[in-house]
């Protein structure tokens, strides 16, 4: 087990390096001058040269990359051009907001998805299966940013039950665990949960159907085991894969929250990315993407390790 973890961690290192290279290159595939948002359009050539030297853009790419990587490893992702604050501070606050939203969405998605998937798999090819499968295919097909708008129309515009945007009363982005704040979280979290719900339902349905068709289940039934006993066996066999899918989904939600955060103006990494892109704040863009991608890589690592701890057969294959 320990060798497996060590191997898996070592395998992750070159991936991390690759991810850092891609993030670094993002600034350089951007069209035009990397200084375009810093300099006034009528800046003199001399000022431009000075700024290039100040930001280090006049050095060779390899040198720039190593310097940037060294600083990033030390926790310095540069300064946001827009706010003049350290990128790390901006990203840190946003990450915690997004993480909260994504975690709640994953929990909702997992509970509903497992329920629908389990019911569908247990009553395979009956009308119950058809209804549950229809719900899950809807979950993976619905454009979630549109669903968010529809929910706002229903619950904010028409019924007036829940606030349409923001993370707290008066547009505050300092999270407090009270009803005034939690109300703001309901619509975005429900919207976000639709995708993992659909994917987990599909996975669980296939898992349950497969486990139920195996011989040991027939054996247990023949021995006279109760329906609840069979249920326990199915859950035990399906859980590792279902949990792994849930972990990966959390990662996708963290990275893919931009559309939903834009709809609900949720002050997380997605909204930050949106600002960074449209105000051409390249250090902020680079830093946010690096942090999110690293989160995703580490999450994948954790999922693999936990899955192997539960089911050691995986390490051998």
């Amino acid at each position, binding site marked *: 087990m320990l060798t497996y973890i060590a191997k898996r961690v070592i395998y992750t290192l070159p*991936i991390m390096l690759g991810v850092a290279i891609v993030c670094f290159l993002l600034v350089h595939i951007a069209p035009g001058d990397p200084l375009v948002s810093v300099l006034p359009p009528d800046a003199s050539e001399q000022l431009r040269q000075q700024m290039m030297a100040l930001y280090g853009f006049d050095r060779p790419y390899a040198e720039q990359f190593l310097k940037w990587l060294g600083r990033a490893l030390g926790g310095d992702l540069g300064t946001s051009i827009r706010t003049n604050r350290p990128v790390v501070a901006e990203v840190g606050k946003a990450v915690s907001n997004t993480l909260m939203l994504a975690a709640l969405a994953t929990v909702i998605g997992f509970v509903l998805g497992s329920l629908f998937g389990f019911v569908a798999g247990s009553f395979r090819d009956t009308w119950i299966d058809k209804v549950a499968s229809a719900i899950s295919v809807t979950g*993976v*097909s619905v*454009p979630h940013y549109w669903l968010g*708008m529809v929910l706002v129309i229903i619950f904010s515009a028409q019924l007036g039950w829940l606030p349409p945007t923001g993370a707290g009363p008066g547009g505050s982005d300092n999270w407090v665990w009270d009803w005034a704040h939690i109300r703001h979280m309901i619509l975005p979290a429900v919207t976000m949960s639709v995708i993992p719900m659909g994917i987990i339902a599909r996975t669980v349905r296939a898992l349950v159907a497969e486990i139920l068709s195996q011989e040991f289940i027939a054996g247990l039934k023949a021995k006279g085991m109760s329906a609840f006993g069979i249920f326990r066996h199915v859950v035990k066999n399906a859980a590792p894969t279902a949990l792994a899918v849930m972990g990966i989904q959390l990662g996708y939600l963290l990275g893919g929250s931009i559309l939903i955060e834009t709809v609900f103006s949720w002050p997380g990494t997605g909204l930050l990315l949106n600002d960074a892109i449209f105000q051409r704040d390249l250090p902020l863009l680079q830093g946010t993407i690096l942090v999110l991608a690293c989160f995703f890589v580490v999450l994948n690592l954790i999922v693999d390790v936990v899955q192997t701890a539960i089911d050691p057969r995986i390490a051998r294959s």
Partner: protein
Amino acid sequence: MVQAVAPAMIDDATIERSPGYWSTVWRRFRRDPVAMIALGVIVLLILIAILAPYIAPHDPFRGATLRRLRPPGTPGYLLGTDELGRDMLSRLIYGARLSLFMGVTPVFLALFIGSAIGVTAGYVGGIVNTLLMRTIDIIFAFPSVLLAIALSGAMGAGIVNGLISLTIVFIPPIARIAESVTTSVRSLDYVEAARASGAGALSIVRKHVLGNVLGPIFVYAMSLIAVSMILASGLSFLGLGVRPPEPEWGLMLNTLRTALYTQPMLCALPGIMIFITSISFNLLTDGLRSAMDIKA
């Protein structure tokens, strides 16, 4: 004598020949009503996109400030008018062109490039495999939505940049499947036999490797179209893909957000189109998968 017998034998052989793989798949697929309806909807959407100039009742670009944001059901404007007074129905019809193009093209580009990478890596093996597949792993290490948005965000808005970013996002999963199938096929006995009997690398790849790889990859790529539709329209929704005044469903959803409170039905319309397209592709893929007996 021999020549006299031969035609009769050929006839017999033709009669008893078992139906081909694809005709069996089609026969099974035809019996699946849900999949057939999904296929019908997709064909209809493609026809709408092609015939847009003939069926759209109005010019999708011409607006009028006097008839802005009319609700669906307004005489002469069946689905109402948008925030610039342009006919919604016509814009939704014309929108099928760009929306389908932006959703489907990246998947086919990625299918082509990803299979080429995967088959090369799998067939050549060794250092080439390591180099190609580790690079693919790095792209795969990004959450797909994040990578698509990061790339088009860095490159700037536009149709071409949107297509490039989405293609890059879809290459890794396709390349991985192609690589694993190719690697497993390469060492099969009959491929060894073909190689021993002097078949060149290209003809082995064409006949034996592609013959095995294309089926599963094609089905997988079909399932990506649903994701791609949502993502491509999502890029336009954020202001990163198609730019105004072009009609595109994601972009229409974005510009109509201002009318969320005044004309809610109107704002919901473009999203319904994206939803219908995406769910049809998902149901089509499900049907194809069970007809081809491929596990998800």
